C-alpha cells in the first residue's frame, strides 16, 4: 500500500485522510471517506478538543459518568477513560447508574454496565428508585398508567443522579447527550415557546451554580458516529428502547432531524450554532433557586418537583404536580384541572419528556 492520494481500482477508494489504507466508511458528519483507524482518530480527537476548548475538567477531579448501558454512555465511558490515560487528564472516573426498576429493560441494561465496570476498570455505583423513593417505575406505571410516566422518571432520575454523585463525592457528572439530542432540544424549545430553556439548552456545562455541575462532552458528536464507533470497536452495549417511553412529540422532532441530516449533514451543528447565537436578552432568567423544605434538594418552589410527585404517589393522587396545577406545594390538593398563567410558566413538566425538570 504505497500509493498517492488518488483513488485506485474501482470500488476500493483510499482513505481521504491518510491516503494509505482503504476507506472503510463515509463519515456521517462530513461524508468524507476514511479508513477505520482514521475514524477512531478524528472521533476521539474531536472529543478531546471539545474537552480542552471548554475546560471541562481540571486535573485531580472526580468525575461520574452517567451510565445507562446504552450506546452513548458506553462509548462515553470508553472514550473518556482512553482520553484520560492518553492525554493525562488526571481524572478519577466512576460509572454511575440509576436503576429505575423497569423489568425487562433496566435490569438487562444494568448487566451491561456491570460488564463495562470490569472491561474498563471503572468503579460502578448503582442508585435505585426503590431505595430513594420506595417506588419502582413498574409500580408507578401500575399506579398511573402509561401517560405522564416519563415525567416521573425524568424528575426522579435527575435527582437520583445528583444523589448518587453526592454519594460518590464526585466534582462533576458527565452525560452522553450527543449533538442530535441537543439539536432536538433546541427545536423542541422553539416549538413550545420556552425561551428560558432555549437560552440554556446548548450550554455544554449546566448547573454550575448547583452542587454538582454536569457536562456533555458529546455536544458536537453525531449519534451516527457514536453508533459507528461502538460498532467498529465492538463495544458491549444495550440497545433496546425503554418499554415505557413511546413519546410521539419527541419522535416528530427526531424524525425531522434525521431527515435534515440526510439532506445536509451539517444541519445538526448549524442548529446548535443557532442555539448558541440566539439573541436572548439577559433579563430572561429562570426562577430563583432555593432548596426543598423536605429533602434539601435544589428547588425553585417550597418543595422540589420530586417531592411533589412522590407526595402525590404516596397519597394516591398521582396527578398532583403533573401539568398545569395552580400551586405546587404542600398545601395544594390535587386539582389538576386548575389553570393559571403563572403556574403554567413554572410548571412545564408535561412537555418535559424524559429529560426531567431542569435538565435541558
Amino acid at each position, binding site marked *: 500500500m504505497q500509493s498517492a492520494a488518488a483513488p485506485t481500482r474501482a470500488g476500493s477508494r483510499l482513505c481521504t485522510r491518510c491516503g494509505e489504507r482503504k476507506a472503510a466508511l463515509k463519515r456521517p458528519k462530513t461524508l468524507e471517506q476514511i479508513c477505520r483507524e482514521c475514524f477512531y482518530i478524528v472521533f476521539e480527537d474531536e472529543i478531546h478538543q471539545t474537552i480542552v476548548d471548554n475546560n471541562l475538567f481540571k486535573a485531580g477531579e472526580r468525575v461520574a459518568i452517567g451510565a445507562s448501558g446504552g450506546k452513548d454512555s458506553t462509548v462515553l465511558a470508553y472514550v473518556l477513560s482512553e482520553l484520560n490515560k492518553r492525554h493525562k487528564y488526571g481524572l478519577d472516573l466512576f460509572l454511575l447508574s440509576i436503576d429505575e426498576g423497569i423489568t425487562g429493560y433496566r435490569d438487562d441494561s444494568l448487566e451491561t454496565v456491570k460488564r463495562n465496570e470490569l472491561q474498563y476498570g471503572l468503579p460502578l455505583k448503582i442508585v435505585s428508585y426503590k431505595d430513594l423513593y420506595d417506588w419502582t417505575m413498574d409500580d408507578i406505571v401500575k399506579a398511573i398508567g402509561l401517560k405522564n410516566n416519563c415525567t416521573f422518571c425524568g424528575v426522579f432520575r435527575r435527582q437520583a443522579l445528583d444523589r448518587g454523585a453526592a454519594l460518590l463525592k464526585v466534582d462533576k457528572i458527565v452525560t452522553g447527550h450527543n449533538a442530535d439530542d441537543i439539536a432536538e432540544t433546541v427545536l423542541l424549545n422553539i416549538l413550545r415557546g420556552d425561551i428560558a430553556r432555549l437560552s440554556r439548552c446548548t450550554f455544554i456545562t449546566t448547573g454550575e451554580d448547583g452542587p454538582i455541575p454536569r457536562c456533555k462532552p458529546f455536544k458536537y458528536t453525531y449519534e451516527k458516529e457514536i453508533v459507528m464507533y461502538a460498532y467498529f470497536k465492538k463495544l458491549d452495549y444495550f440497545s433496546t428502547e425503554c418499554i415505557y417511553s413511546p413519546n410521539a412529540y419527541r419522535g*416528530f422532532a427526531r424524525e425531522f432531524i434525521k431527515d435534515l441530516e440526510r439532506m445536509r449533514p451539517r444541519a445538526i451543528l448549524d442548529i446548535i450554532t443557532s442555539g448558541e447565537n440566539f439573541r436572548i436578552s439577559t433579563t430572561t432568567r429562570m426562577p430563583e433557586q432555593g432548596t426543598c423544605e423536605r429533602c434539601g434538594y435544589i428547588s425553585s418552589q417550597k418543595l422540589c418537583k420530586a417531592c411533589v410527585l412522590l407526595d402525590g404517589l404516596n397519597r394516591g393522587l398521582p396527578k398532583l404536580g403533573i401539568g398545569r396545577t395552580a400551586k405546587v406545594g404542600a398545601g395544594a390538593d390535587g386539582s389538576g384541572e386548575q389553570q393559571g398563567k403563572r403556574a403554567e410558566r413554572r410548571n412545564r413538566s408535561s412537555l418535559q419528556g424524559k429529560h426531567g425538570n431542569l435538565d435541558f
Partner: protein
Amino acid sequence: MAAASSSSCGGAGCGAHCSSSTSSSVEDAPEGILDRLSISGAAASCGKCGGGAVVVVAGGVGLCGECLRAQLFGKFKLAVTSSAMVRPTDSVLVAFSGGPASRVALQFIHEMRSKAIESWDASNSQALPVFNVGVAFVNESALLSKTECEVEQATEDIKSIVSSLLPGDKAMHLASLDDVFSSESKDGESRLRELVGMIADDTGREDLLQCLRMLSLQKIALENGYTKIMLGSCASTIACHVLSATVKGQGYSLPADIQYVDTRWEVPVVLPLRDCLAQELRLLCEFDSLKTQQLLDRPCSGINGLVASFVARLREENPSREHTIVRTAQKLKPFPFNKFSANGYHDFLPSRLRPKFQDVDNDESAFSELLCLICRSPFSESELQNLESTRHKSQKKIDLYTAYCCQSCHFQILPGGRDLYDHFFSLLPRFWTERVDTASASHSSLRDQIEDYLLEDDDDGN
C-alpha cells in the same frame, strides 16, 4: 389534504412574495379546505356574533366568515398602526405574488386607503394627504418551465386582479427577476441562469432567488418613488422561516427577519400580516371571493421544503403551533433597524400616539450591524471576527467578498471551488458587491499609500 402538504412557501422567508405558495391547490380543492376548517355539522354558530355558520375555528372559538374577516382586518390594522408602518405621505408598494396572503394584504391596504380617502373628502382642512398604493409583481418564469402562454395568462390574471380594485388608480409594476441585472448587462436572463446554475445546493439556490426577488422589489420601489414595501408574509411563512433559519445556523440574524418593520433596506419593508395564519388568509380569499393566481409559483425544495412539511405536520397535531413558534422567535432581541427611528418620522402620527414611539433608546447606535453581502443577515460575533482578520490581512478583493458573506451563504450559496469565486462574484448584481467596495475602499487606499514599505509576510500577496 393536498393543500396542507403542498403548503407553504418553505419558509426561507420567501417573504410575501411567495407566502402565497401556501395554497397552491386552493383552486383544486376549495371544498376540502372548507371541510377541514369548519366544525362538523352546520349546527354550530359563530362564537362571536352568534349569527352566521362557523367557517373557521380560531383560538378555540368558531367564527363565521364575517367575524373572521373582521378579526384578520383587526390584526392587520393593529400591526399597521402600532408600528406606524404607513404614514399619510407614504407611497406603499405591495409585493403581490398572486397568492392568498399577499392578496389579502393588497385588499386590506386598499380598504384602508379607501377609508382614508373618504375621510379626506369629508374633512374641512384636508391638511394631511392620503398615502398612495402601488402593486409589484416579480415574474420568475425565466427559471420555470412554463409555456409562454401560461405565463401570459398568469400575468393577465394578476393585472386584472389589481385593476379590479376600485377606484382603479393603483400603479402596477411588472418586473422580471432578471431585471436586477438590466443596468449592467444586456442579457440579464442568461446571466441569471448562469448565476443560479453555479449554486450546487438546492436550498442555497432558492435562498439566492429570494434575495434577488427582494432586490427586484427594492429596484421597483426606488425607481418609482415608493417609500415602503409591504409583504404578505404571514405567521405560517414566518414559522417556517424561524425553523429553517435555525437549521441553517442563522440563529443570530433570525430576529431581523421576523419583525413588523425592517429598515435594513433602502426602502423599508413592513410585514403587517405577521400574526395571521396562512389557512385563515386562504379561507378569507375563499369567503370573499378574492381571486388568486399561483401558476407561477415555484415549489420549494431542499431544507425549505423539508421544514414546510414538518410545520404542516405540526399544524395537524396542533393548529396553533405556528403561532407558538412565531411567539418564541419574537422573544429574541430584534435589531435597531427593526423600527423606524429617523428624525421626525413619527411627526405625522396623532399626538396621542406619538409618545409611544418617543422612548427610542439613544444608547444604541442607529445602524451599526454589519450585513451579509448576499442575504443581508447581520453578522454574529464569530463572523465579525472572521471578517476582521481577513480585512487586516488585506488580501485580494475576492477574499474580502467572501469574508463579507455570512456562514450560511458561504456554505449554501458560494460555489464549490475557490477558483470559481471570481466568476461567481462577477455575476452577482453589482449593487451587492459595490457595498463591499466602498466599505473597503478607505482601508485599501490607506494601504496603497504605504504599499512600498510593506514586506510580504505570506504567500497571499500575489
